[in-house]
């Protein structure tokens, strides 16, 4: 369950301050290597935020993919640059990238203000004990395939297949697994397609580099 105590507040605000200050360092420091290290720190702080939200799986993925892999990508780039402090020259795309950044920021702000934060509201204000129990203790899925419905008790008489699930706040990983096969099956396949696009797109850029003979 999400908890509101002085301790969690303290951790949240100190981690947030750490994330924001590291992100500012990433932008303003001219040394690429230090910027990459600070970026890894930012990712790690965001992982801690995920853990505080009881999204353990997303937190672990954040560490695995962003801290582990994306930072390796950055370190690869840094490895071959001689004068690190001089290599950060102002780009000619600056006005263009400034506009893009502002647009992305505005879309984030609009998105955050328009989301209904349902689950947190339910836990804070709802008197419906069933929902709170389903989220923080356990619930049952009854039936097969398309005809699955969710219940708080096992309903043994109905003769349906009953699967016991721990609440979303306890075991978020297996809930994601169910959604990957059930509701978001198509999105799951599209992710596979996006991965292929990543590999083939990388090949295309590599081909252009080879043709330029800058090996």
């Amino acid at each position, binding site marked *: 369950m999400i908890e509101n105590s002085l301790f969690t507040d303290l951790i949240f605000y100190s981690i947030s301050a750490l994330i924001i200050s590291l992100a500012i360092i990433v932008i303003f420091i001219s040394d690429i290597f230090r910027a990459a290290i600070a970026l890894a720190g930012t990712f790690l702080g965001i992982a801690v935020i995920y853990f505080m939200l009881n999204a353990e799986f997303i937190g672990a993925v954040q560490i695995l993919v962003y801290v582990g892999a994306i930072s390796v990508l950055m370190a690869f780039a840094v490895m071959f*640059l001689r004068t690190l402090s001089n290599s950060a020259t102002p780009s000619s795309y600056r006005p263009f990238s400034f506009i893009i950044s502002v647009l992305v920021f505005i879309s984030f702000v609009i998105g955050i203000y328009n989301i209904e934060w349902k689950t947190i509201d339910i836990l804070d204000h709802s008197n419906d004990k069933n929902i709170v129990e389903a989220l923080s203790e356990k619930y049952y899925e009854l039936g097969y395939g398309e005809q699955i419905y969710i219940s708080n008790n096992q309903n043994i008489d109905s003769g349906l297949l009953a699967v016991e699930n721990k609440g979303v706040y306890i075991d978020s990983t297996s809930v994601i697994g169910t959604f990957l*096969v059930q509701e978001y099956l198509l999105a799951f396949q599209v992710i*596979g397609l996006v*991965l292929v696009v990543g590999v083939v797109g*990388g090949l295309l850029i*590599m081909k252009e*580099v080879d043709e330029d003979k800058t090996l």
Partner: protein
Amino acid sequence: MFEEYFRQYAILIIFSLVATSVPIGMLAISFIAQLINVRPSRPSEVKLTAYEGGMLPFEERPEKFNFKYYYYAILFVVFDVEAVFLIPWAVKYGILTKQFGLVALLGTLIFLTVATIGYVYAWKKKKLDWIYNEK
């Protein structure tokens, strides 16, 4: 509530505290040793490179950076993401087969097949070799 939260992550918090304090402590001891003239301070050009004592960097500007190194990192990231999506599915596979039948298996099988096409393509184009003949 406080008790429960702290108990769950107490070991993790202690571990991360130790893990951060050891390197910071080492650097601090080294700095103090410099202050009391135990450690000499003689910076040179090689020492100040990004990977001190490693291979010498050979390019001045990021534009000339060979994309091949990047590509290997990208291949790794793709495998990484693929594995990440398999974990929640594998955790519940036994129950999912009861609930959804073959869909649980086929869904992931198609995902894996599609994601592997990129690798087959790269293999066919001989781009997985570090040194390849351009014919």
